[in-house]
């Protein structure tokens, strides 16, 4: 290892040139083969080292990279959780919104039938009171309406007047007026409800049918499986009554 030939030969370049002279000896060929292998290995190793990122790094660098990756991963996890929650919210929101719309529609239908602003159809009875001698008065007709309601009629119309909660009956000079509209005999009552129940309630002894017949009028009741209450009650805005605002948030 230590250099021990102080007189440097003056022909160092010449020696090199001499050694570099191509010779066709077996050892020279072997040396060339080894040189090829060396070059190949160097190039391979350099390329390998460049292409491999992590394996050649220091421990501290690796720790830093791992930290960064963990941080990024946790941040992305958080992101994913947030987005998932938002998505769940949106999905449930749309379904609950649809449910709310459905409930509101059902409410609207029920209230419309109750208030007489919606047409109704279903099974029920058609009752005709023929009154040639004009003996049927408003109280009798009101009695008939009450009997129908007692029997479970949900929508009633007399001739072409829809009977609602606020309907009022008057005995005018020209006959019966309901809600200010003149109703002339024969009275055609259409009621939607359970046909058999209503029919038997009308025909009960001492009931409506008997009373009407005692007055000298004729009454006929027909059960129908499908009839329509087509008359509508004009909706009027209440002038005085106002809804009490709900103090607590209402449940839908």
């Amino acid at each position: 290892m230590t250099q021990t030939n102080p007189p440097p030969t003056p022909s160092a370049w010449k020696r090199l040139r001499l050694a570099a002279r191509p010779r066709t000896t077996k050892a020279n060929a072997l040396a060339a083969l080894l040189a090829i292998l060396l070059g190949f290995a160097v190039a391979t190793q350099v390329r390998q080292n460049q292409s491999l990122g992590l394996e050649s790094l220091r421990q501290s660098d690796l720790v830093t990279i791992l930290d960064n990756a963990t941080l990024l991963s946790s941040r992305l996890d958080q992101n994913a959780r947030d987005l998932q929650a938002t998505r769940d919210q949106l999905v449930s929101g749309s379904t609950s919104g649809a449910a709310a719309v459905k409930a509101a529609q059902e409410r609207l239908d029920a209230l419309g039938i109750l208030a007489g602003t919606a047409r109704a159809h279903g099974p029920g009875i058609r009752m005709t009171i023929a009154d040639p001698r004009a003996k049927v008065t408003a109280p009798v007709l009101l009695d008939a309406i009450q009997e129908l309601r007692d029997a479970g009629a949900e929508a009633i119309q007399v001739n072409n007047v829809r009977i609602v909660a606020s309907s009022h009956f008057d005995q005018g000079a020209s006959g019966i007026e309901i809600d200010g509209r003149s109703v002339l005999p024969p009275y055609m009552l259409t009621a939607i409800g359970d046909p058999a129940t209503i029919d038997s309630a009308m025909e009960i002894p001492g009931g409506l049918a008997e009373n009407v017949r005692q007055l000298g009028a004729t009454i006929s009741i027909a059960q129908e499986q499908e009839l329509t209450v087509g008359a509508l009650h004009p909706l009027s805005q209440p002038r005085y009554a106002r809804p009490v605002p709900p103090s607590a948030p209402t449940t839908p």
Partner: protein
Amino acid sequence: MIPVLGLFVGLAAGLFLHPAVPLALQPYLPIAVIAALDAVFGGVRAVLDGIFDDKVFVVSFLSNVVVAAFIVFLGDQLGVGSQLSTGVVVVLGIRIFSNVASIRRHVFRA
């Protein structure tokens, strides 16, 4: 001359063929390369000293490579692979530097 050409041929082959180092050889290749470089510089120095011998060069080259790889292998088996690799690299680096110093004295007389 022919070995120098061979070196360049090998470099070119390695650069253009994109060989993948087998996983089992990955820890040994860099050490083997350093050992081979040590042998090469030793050979150049021997040429300048006028004591170059083809056979000695080939044998020293191969034995350097094999012994260096073996030492690393042994270190891996003992659990001190990285430390032993460092040690081998240090030793071979010192040898390369001393060889280069000798070559420099021959060539530049300094």
